[in-house]
């Protein structure tokens, strides 16, 4: 099982994503934004960071990178694609997911361990969660406010396409506390928080059991592997 992680100019978290894929039991494959080649991978992760320094709009310039033509084609054919933070912003800019991300309503960058509720466990990336599982993974962004028209928000809610919702304090002004969404098919998921930073005991969020023992993010990656194996 080979899962590609695309590096864009200004990506930051591609190595963490590769590590998460390895720990989950698949082979990470480093991909480059300037190529028109997915190297035969089975799934894709668009990692976090600040591609192109967030110039124009966060994720906007990366969303028209050469490799994105192949990403959009593969996603439309059903390949699992996960966009984390800046990767989520790219997926909205590429119209693979609806809505957009704007500057946090309070104007500040925020970094915290964030509680989320998993509301859709039918996607490729969440099938190993139980419905309404509460998880904690790191969040770190300056432009994480999810917005969409009322019509689009109602549609997302009605179709069960809100995958992750913020619990407790809404960290960035996201409408309806939305932290992550999926496409109609359930193969493309984007979220602002960072599952790849909560995959290995000793390096994740604190839990009631022990400091930094949180590994809730690993389930996204093992879910994709399970979905690919059973496909």
């Amino acid at each position, binding site marked *: 099982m080979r899962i590609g992680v695309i590096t864009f100019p200004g990506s930051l978290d591609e190595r963490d994503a590769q590590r998460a894929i390895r720990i989950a039991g698949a082979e990470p494959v480093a991909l480059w934004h300037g190529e028109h080649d997915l190297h035969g991978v089975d799934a894709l992760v668009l990692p976090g960071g600040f591609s192109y320094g967030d110039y124009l*709009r966060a994720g906007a310039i990366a969303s028209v990178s050469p490799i994105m033509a192949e990403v959009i084609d593969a996603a439309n054919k059903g390949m699992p694609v996960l966009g984390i933070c800046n990767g989520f912003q790219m997926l909205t800019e590429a119209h693979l997911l609806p809505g957009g991300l704007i*500057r946090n309503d309070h104007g500040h960058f925020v970094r915290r361990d964030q509680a989320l509720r998993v509301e859709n466990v039918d996607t490729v990336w969440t099938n190993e969660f139980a419905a309404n599982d509460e998880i904690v993974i790191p969040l770190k962004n300056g432009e994480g406010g999810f*917005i969409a028209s009322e019509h689009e928000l109602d549609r997302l809610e009605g179709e069960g396409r809100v995958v992750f919702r913020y619990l407790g304090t809404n960290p960035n002004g996201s409408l309806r506390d939305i932290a992550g969404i999926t496409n109609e098919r359930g193969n493309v998921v984007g979220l602002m928080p960072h599952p790849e930073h909560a995959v290995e005991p000793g390096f994740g969020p604190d839990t009631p059991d022990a400091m930094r023992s949180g590994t809730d993010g690993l389930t996204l990656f093992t879910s994709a592997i399970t979905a690919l194996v059973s496909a």
Partner: protein
Amino acid sequence: MPTILVEVMPKAELLDPQGKAVSGALTRLGKSEFSAVRIGKRFELTVDGPITDAIRADVQHIADEILSNSVIEDVVAITYPEAE
């Protein structure tokens, strides 16, 4: 060389945190007569030759699809230089 201007603003109904921060600074400076500030973008597109219909069509497309994101922004003006 002709320069085409494209102006993009965050949608009116959306919170504009940048504008809000500047508005707060103005209030602190005693400039309380300015009740709101909104911040947008101005793009200057330079072309080497004459502005043809094809270029106008391209500008409209670029403005709608790349320079702005219709979910969060509006293209409020596209201005062409005076014909020489």
